[in-house]
Each structure stands twice: as C-alpha cells, then as structure tokens.
C-alpha cells in the first residue's frame, strides 16, 4: 500500500481570449503524471521553471483544481475532498518557497503558527500559547518570539516559522515547494538539517519540490523528473544520478556545477558531448509535439519515458 498515490493527474488552465473572455485553449501545466510516495521517505520532484512541479504539489494539497486523475491518500480517495475540512487537510501541509511572502507581515508569530490550530482544534488561550511555544522551540526559535512580527526575523528563521506552522497539526505528509531556494548556503544547510531531524522525530513523509540537484540528491530517496507537465524519468536517487537514461535527465545532471575546479575542462567536454547527443537524439526521446512519451520500466524502480517499441 502506497502512502500517497497520484494517478494520471492532469491540471489544465484555460486561456481566455477575445472580448467576451471565452476559453480559447488550455495550458497543460500538468499533463498526466503518475507516481506514489512511500511513508517516511522523501520524494523529489525536479524540473525547470514551467515544468509543472509546483502545480503538481499544489494540486495534491488542493490549491489548484484538478482537471482529471485521482489522488489517493492512505488508500482513501481524496481527489474531490479538498473543499471540506477533512482529515486530509490536517494530515497534509505545505512549506512554501519564499519565507518573505508566505508569512502575513501584519500578524504576530503567535497568530501565524496558531492559525492551523484554530482551524482544527479548539484550544483554550493558554493551551494554544503553550503549543505555539513548544513548536517554536522545536524549530529552534526562542519561545519569547511569539509576540514578534515576521520582519524581525532573518530568512532562515522565517522559513522555520513556516515549518512550525506546517507541523503544528502533526501532519503525515509535508509538501515542501523549493523550501531553500531563497536562502543562503549556510542558512540552507540549517533548514535542510532541521527538516531531516523532524522527519525522523515525527515520522514525516516529504514531497520535496526543487530545481537544485545538489540539494535534491542530498535530501531525497526517490526522484521524479518533470518536463513540460510530464515525467521523463523516475527512479531512486542513485539511479537518477549515476545511471540517467533519458537524454533530458542526462542534460540536467551534466549541468550541475562541480565544486572541484580541476574538473572544469572535463565538465565542459562532457557537457558538449551531452549537448550533441541531445540534439541528435531529440526525436527519439520526444514526440512530435516536443512532449515526453509514457514511462516504461527499465528496472523495478527505474522508469523512463520512451516510445513504445514496435
């Protein structure tokens, strides 16, 4: 039994045009993706901007309407439950990318962190305060900060306030949308370490959306690579990084800067090779619309989007 199953998920946005604002077409932001998450593991969703990775995450949690497909959480279908305050809303939380815009600047930390508690649990004022302070302590902020406003904190601290809010209801799944992209490397290290710690402590499952492959490799057990709304490859972290099969994945992996300056020339040569291969074999990997094919298994855990044989 998978923890979260996403089956042929599609999210299309209408394009309005003309003077009457009629729908003239659709942007297929997510165009049929299927994957599943295992409990206690971290699943990485990777892609360039516009690949549909964030939309996928937002659709799962109900922030985007689903056009077609099914989402099952712990074997219960939750595709259309989003509007009601179901258990699901408690069990799945989100960490947003930008800690500067995801916290209401006019609210005190106490109100920010307590908001999910107020929605789902009826606590007395003093109980609530205690819970908020416990949460802040858990994320490494002093309990006295409950009266402060977001602007009084640094980027890393703000992101931890966002995490405190996300774990307030003891969720089972956290969707982290580029949680460290806006942060400096040393602060990034702090947030990543912390996310790993609470994962063990609270037995959390993560869906980690990102584009920094170094971070993804460090955090994830399994990775799905998206391109133009579809998966091009899925596999364990090891499979993706040491044995990428799809030309798009190869190109992505080749583009990671190496922190060893001695390998510079080697890397330039390697990238050139991959680029040549990409150009020559583009038609073998993408259909006539430039989209990826359906995923085909190459091993038990490793799936690659290739045309069907024959």
């Amino acid at each position, binding site marked *: 039994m998978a923890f979260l199953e996403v089956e042929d998920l599609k999210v299309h946005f209408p394009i309005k045009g003309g003077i009457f604002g009629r729908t003239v077409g659709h942007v297929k932001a997510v165009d049929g993706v299927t994957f599943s998450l295992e409990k206690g593991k971290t699943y990485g969703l990777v892609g360039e901007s516009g690949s549909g990775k964030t939309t996928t995450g937002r659709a799962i949690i109900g922030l985007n309407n689903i056009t077609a497909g099914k989402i099952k959480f712990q074997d219960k279908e939750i595709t259309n439950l989003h509007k009601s305050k179901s258990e699901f809303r408690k069990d799945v939380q989100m960490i947003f990318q930008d800690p500067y815009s995801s916290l209401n600047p006019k609210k005190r930390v106490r109100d920010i962190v307590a908001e999910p508690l107020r929605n789902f649990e009826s606590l007395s004022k003093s109980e609530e305060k205690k819970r908020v302070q416990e949460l802040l302590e858990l994320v490494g902020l002093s309990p006295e900060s409950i009266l402060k406003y977001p602007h009084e904190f*640094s980027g890393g601290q703000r992101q931890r306030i966002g995490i405190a809010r996300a774990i307030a209801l003891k969720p089972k799944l956290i969707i982290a949308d580029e949680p460290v992209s806006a942060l400096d490397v040393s602060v990034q290290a702090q947030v990543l*370490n912390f996310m790993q710690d609470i994962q063990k402590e609270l037995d959390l499952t993560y869906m980690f959306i990102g584009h*920094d492959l170094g971070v993804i490799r460090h955090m994830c057990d399994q990775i799905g690579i998206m391109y133009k709304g579809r998966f091009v490859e899925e596999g364990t972290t090891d499979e993706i990084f040491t044995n990428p099969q799809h030309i798009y994945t190869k190109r992505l992996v080749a583009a990671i800067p190496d922190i060893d300056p001695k390998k510079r020339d080697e890397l330039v040569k390697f*990238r050139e090779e991959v680029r040549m291969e990409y150009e020559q074999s583009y038609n073998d990997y993408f259909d006539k619309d430039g989209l990826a094919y359906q995923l085909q298994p190459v091993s038990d855990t490793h799936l690659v989007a290739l045309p069907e044989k024959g």
Partner: protein
Amino acid sequence: MTEELLKVQHLKTSFRIKDDYYAAVDDVTLTLNKNEVLAIVGESGCGKSALAFSIMGLHTKAKIEGNILYKDQDLANMSLAKLNKLRGKDLGMIFQDPLTALNPLMEVGEQIGEVLMLHNKNMSKTKRVEKVIELLNKVGIPRAAHTFSQFPHELSGGMRQRVVIAMAIANDPEVLVADEPTTALDATIQSQILDLIKELKDGSQAGIILITHDLGVVAEMADRVAVMYAGQIVEIADVHTLFDHPLHPYTRSLLNSIPNAEREGEKLHVIQGIVPALQKLPRKGCRFSARIPWIDASEHEENPELHEVAPGHFVRCTCYKNFHFPDESKEAAHHGIS
C-alpha cells in the same frame, strides 16, 4: 604576463542609516587583471553587490572613500559626466535580474542600439542595426533579426539574460562586472550563460568581476576568488588553492555547508548565528569570531589584517591557524592543514 586593469584601493562604501554612516564595504583592496575572472563570493549582506555597484558608480547616496583606479583615472572621485563616458563603453555590467534590467516598453534591439548610440554618436542607423544583429548572434540568440523587434516579455529568462549580456558587451568593454548573472536562471540555462561569458572573455581578453553566492559557479568560472564577510575580504587566492586548501574559517564553513555527493549521509555544516545587520557589525577585532565561539579569543588578532600565507594567497586574522570545527579535534584540524 598579467596586466593590471582595475585597482581597487582601500574602498569604503558607507550608507546612511538615521544619522550615522555605516560601511557596507569596509577597506577592500583588490586588483583585476586582463583576461581574468575574479569571483567575489559571500552570503547576502556581505557587501559583494555593494562593491560591484561602487565600482560602476551606481550608488547615488552612499559615501565612497578610497580609490578605484582604471587607466590612471579614479572612478571613485570622478564627475558623473566623465563616468558616463566610461560606463557602457570601457566598463560593462551584467545585472542579476534580466527582467528588471531591461525596459519593458522598448524593443530589445533598440535597447542594445541605445548603448551603441550613446558612445558612437556618428554611427549611422543602418550600421547600428547591423551591429546589434551581430551582437545578438554573438550571444547565441537564434533568429536575431526577428528578436531585434521583440519586447523583453516575449523572451524567455535565458534569452533575456543574453540580451542583457549583449548590451554589456556592445562596446567591447575591458572590464565587465557581472552581478549574480545566473541566479535567476535554471541549471541548464545557467551552464549555457556561463559558457557564453567564458567564451566572450576569451575572445575579448576582458577582465570580469563575477559576483556570486554559488560556489559551484565559482569553481567553474573563476581564476581567482575573493571571499567576503561583513564588508571585508577574508580570503583571496587562486581558485585551485581556495578549493583545495581553504584557510579562513568562513571559507571552510561555506564549503562544508553545501551538499556534496562524496559526503552523502553526513549532516551539513551550519554556521552558528547570523550575519549581523549593518548597524550592529563589530568594527573591532575579527568579525567572524562571533560565529565560531568555540575558538579561543586569543587566537584572533586585535586588528585583523590580510596575511600573505603563500604567494597570492591572503587570509585575514590569525584564527585560521588553529581553527577546527566543533566536531573534530584540534589534532585532526592540524593534519588537515599540513
């Protein structure tokens, strides 16, 4: 033979907060050579962008002390009219965010043409259009003639950054300042843009000051690296030395905090505390000391200076000598250095 292009001497850029001036760039001295990429690394708030803006004279309200010497002229004490003759011609700049660096209401070809026009008043219009298309081709934009009459919003992020680069190199500058040129871009685009900058440099022999926070970019691009912390350069060395034998605690901490495939499963190093705000910067003693509290105060210098530990390798303060991370013993640290 290395040829010095630009010399920054004791540069101090201060901003006014309430009634006092606070130095964001504090006594920075460095040289940029011809055909060289000098990377300036550090986290937000370390003063690296303030340094870049000072060199280009883009700070209008800051107090700038010290000298920025370019061809026997001092950019730091120069009239605006004179500076405008240099900027866009001998000095080019690539900005971080191509969307804000470009005028949204002007065709990109016109924008590049403007740079040419300002410095070559006698150039005919046909010649200018020709030159712009040549530039667009040079920065790898397909269908240059078509792109000429497009607006910035019609282009992708990577293409926009190419336009910004085309503007920066329009008059073959000798000094190019690139402020986080790839931070807003995807990884595959990033590597293309970096390759482009490298190619252009090899072609024109320009000197490039590359401002970045990404050590991966540094490893790929730089010839020499200056690491900045709290407005000061704490370490400067050629790129191989810096990555193989980093000495300053800040440099070593930064390198340890990036995820590395070879150290999989290990915890990332976290630098304790935060970068202090400009008003709260300690102006005396080692500025990094508060972030490495386990190091004894006696290890620091009273007035930390840059020491030349090997030819071309400078390190600030003496605290690097016996530095160790909290989870390793002093002995291990010693062996690590020797």
